[in-house]
């Protein structure tokens, strides 16, 4: 900090007196007290309400806290800084810089939202995965994309993720979403018979989008044979029911065929 800046700061804060300092301390203490009270009593009050009113009351807590802090800051500034034009310009400049840093990501998300609207990495109805969160796109807002996970949890993901995250889109604006059911079988079996059977399991599923291909992939693994049954459901929203149906019926048919399933060998008990 050079000499000029030091002098400016000294001039800005030069009129601070002991009384002012006491007032500031009281304001800070009052603010803390008010915040503590709202955080304690509003949730208690909300607990006595039901339904939507309870949620409104709980939402008041952070809003009130923001109002209290804003009021306190204004009261303190009024006492600390002499309200001249130069002081106000300097203050607003510093404030603008702070807000700019704080809202960098916000603005970035807004711009990414505009980019997403024409690049279309996701659309409403798409099943996407961003940074490990998988779900159906419900809405694309200005700043965020809103997805609902299979556990019925709504996730708001900022658009700025498109700058540096991989966006996995399972159906990419279409009704075609590939589902995979896995079967792990004991290696001693007739693979051709199993391939045909699993194909028919998919073909006879009411969930199947029949005009899309059905594929059965077999891979030999150290513990047995791994079969991937790949097919498309009629509606992407049925993907979990579809995989369940393939698994349940596939398992039943394989058991009827007399095929054994692969099992992890038991770990030897070191004590024995």
């Amino acid at each position, binding site marked *: 900090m050079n000499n000029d800046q030091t002098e400016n700061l000294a001039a800005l804060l030069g009129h601070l007196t002991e009384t002012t300092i006491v007032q500031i301390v009281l304001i800070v203490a009052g603010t803390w007290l008010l915040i503590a009270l709202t955080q304690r009593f509003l949730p208690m009050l909300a607990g006595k309400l039901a339904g939507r009113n309870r949620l409104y009351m709980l939402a008041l807590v952070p809003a009130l806290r923001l109002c209290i802090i804003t009021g306190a800051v204004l009261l303190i500034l009024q006492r600390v800084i002499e309200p001249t034009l130069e002081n106000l310009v300097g203050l607003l400049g510093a404030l603008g810089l702070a807000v700019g840093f704080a809202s960098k990501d916000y603005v970035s998300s807004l711009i990414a939202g505009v980019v997403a609207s024409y690049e279309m990495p996701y659309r409403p109805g798409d099943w996407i995965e961003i940074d490990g969160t998988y779900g159906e796109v419900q809405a694309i807002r200005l700043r965020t994309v809103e997805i609902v996970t299979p556990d019925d949890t709504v996730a708001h993901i900022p658009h700025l993720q498109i700058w540096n995250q991989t966006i996995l889109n399972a159906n990419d604006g279409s*009704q075609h979403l590939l589902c995979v059911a896995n079967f792990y079988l004991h290696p001693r079996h007739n693979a051709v018979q199993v391939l045909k*059977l699993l194909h*028919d*399991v998919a*073909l*006879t*599923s*009411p*969930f199947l*989008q*029949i*005009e899309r291909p059905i594929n059965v992939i077999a891979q030999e693994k150290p513990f047995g044979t791994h079969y991937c049954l790949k097919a498309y459901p*009629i*509606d992407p929203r049925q993907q979990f*029911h579809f995989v*369940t*149906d393939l698994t*349940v*019926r596939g398992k039943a*048919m394989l058991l009827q065929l007399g095929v054994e399933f692969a099992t992890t060998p038991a770990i030897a008990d070191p004590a024995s």
Partner: protein
Amino acid sequence: MASSDPSDQDITPLWQYVAVTDYRPPAVTVEHTVSTGLSAFWQHFRTKEPPPETPFKTEEELQSIPGILLEQIAPAPDGQRAALALDEALTAWLDSVQMDQPVVLVLHPPYGMHGNILKAWAGLHEWRVLPPPTIGQIFRRETDWIMSGPADLTSWVLPNLERCYLRHAHGLTLVRRLLDQACSGALGRGVIGCDSWAWAFLRQAWSGATPPLLILQSFDQHHLARWFQSFASESGISDLIFRQADNGDYVLPPPTGIQNGSANISDFLQQLAAYSRGIPGIAHAIWRASLRTAPDESPKDAKTAKESTYQPTTLWVTPWRRLKRPAPTTDLLRQHAFILHALLLHNGLPAEWLSQLLPSSCQPGPATLYRLKSAGLIKQQRDGFWQISPLGYPAIRLFLKSEGYLMDDL
């Protein structure tokens, strides 16, 4: 569909088998769509209420036609005439001595009456009619089922291929084997009838080359008029006139000399043809449901009519917009889409087997089936099979199409 020019309608045969590519379901004409649309649009700008319509016959004045009389006026078709049309379409195939096409497949939409038609055709040529396997035989994959009959299997008719499979992992082996054998000529010459929905599924499940396909051409309004008129002519009831109940328009052309100058020809049959997609069985069911009679105008047989003063008998047809058709909610259809689709793919199933084909999450309990029945979407046949109702079929087809389910090509 045959030519839409009414003057050509007498030339075009009523029953006609064509290649699938030539099948044309009837469409509502552009003229009709535009005039209906303009009329509805004009209603928005009317400042005065139109004078109240005085219907020729109110609903209270009319009653349902007794069952016996209905059987005379609109009897269940026996398939004989369609069998003759099929015979004509098969002439070249029958005359050929080559065995490169040992099998012909005759497709029919739901309520296309193919069972009766093929049995009647088999009767014309004294070909053996093969009964379908039992559901137990299908599940047990008894592929020698077809050989269980008499050994001299050289010329045969299988009227219902849709009864030879189930959409189940164990329900396809038998039909695949049957089609392989039939199309290779190992079973001699045969004519196979199949429901169009079942064939849409089977062609995905069976990888053989498709045999020659024939289909009964759809009925447009002119065909329907001739067909219904033929029933009326053969009913033994003296001059029957079919008029629309609300405005008196003639639904079927009246006998010569009877037409009242002020009455027009109704568009009921045009609506019926478009709604039923030209499927005779469905149009016939709706036609029967639409007929009403006035108690004081009971039909007379021809002998009585001659003795008394000549007086034509009028039957009243419920106007199209007042005809009760199933109007299921999208929720109901979506909730039970698998049941409806399975019934269509098999052309009906008994409840216990239906539950074998559906996932555990949408098992059709008795309450579900009776709910669909009360909505007019399905019906139970005498043999216990549940089937899509003829009046519900158009709405169900439209819904399944919009949801992306497997459809027939018709």
